[in-house]
């Protein structure tokens, strides 16, 4: 059915946008906070960290990506099942491991590879199911 196929494709695109934005946002946030250095948990330390955080370009780009994640997450949940999107989003963990191996040349333990394989198998299984099993209030014009 054409509408079923369209639903699958747009769900896939949104889940990919979610995963890319979440990973890019987390990595940039980590880089930004590393540039700032360890935060001292005192009033002056927190104030100092706050000033450095809002002045950091890296942190703002990270926030932009994380906002993109939230928007794509909200968008996909407006038509797809939570029990479809949530496990599908775990693909990000597998992607992060692959990126760490390819670009950062990190060594990955056998246990972690087993995890990656299980995640991919799980996401493929969930991906086989219907993205939407409940009725939706409004239908988008095609």
């Amino acid at each position, binding site marked *: 059915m054409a509408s079923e196929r369209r639903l699958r494709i747009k769900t896939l695109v949104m889940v990919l946008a979610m995963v890319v934005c979440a990973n890019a946002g987390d990595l940039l946030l980590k880089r930004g906070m590393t540039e700032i250095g360890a935060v001292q948990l005192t009033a002056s330390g927190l104030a100092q960290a706050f000033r450095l955080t809002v002045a950091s370009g890296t942190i703002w780009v990270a926030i932009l990506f994380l906002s993109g994640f939230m928007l794509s997450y909200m*968008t996909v949940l407006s038509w797809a099942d939570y029990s479809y999107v949530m496990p599908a989003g*775990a693909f990000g963990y597998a992607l992060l491991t692959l990126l760490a191996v390819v670009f950062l040349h990190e060594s990955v333990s056998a246990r*972690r590879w087993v995890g990656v394989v299980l995640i991919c198998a799980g996401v493929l*299984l969930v991906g086989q199911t219907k993205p939407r099993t*409940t009725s939706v*209030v409004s239908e988008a014009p095609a």
Partner: protein
Amino acid sequence: MRVILVLALLIFGSTGGEIAITHGMKATGEPARLRPLAMLQFLGLAVRNGWFWAGVPLMALSFYSLLVLLSWEPISLVIPASALSYVVGTLGAKYILGEQVSAARWAGVVLVCVGVALVAAG
């Protein structure tokens, strides 16, 4: 004991928050088009839904629980334990949101849950 309690806050906060937001988004309905103007209208509608604002503090609670847990326990224990939220979230989707969770979807969720625990354990 306190670790279990805060872990429960972490898991039920994030799944509860996401379920509330899902409920709000289903009430909002799909954006008419995936274009900037239509997306702004969509976002405006979404944030006027009460369920969205019920979800946000629950997710904030979950985030602070994560920070507290990370200050007590190593990350290689905290993230695998929080992978339980895939199972809790699926139960919530079935019994609260009324989604149909087929056997294939359950099998996928369990594989993802174990897989995430293994990846995060390193």
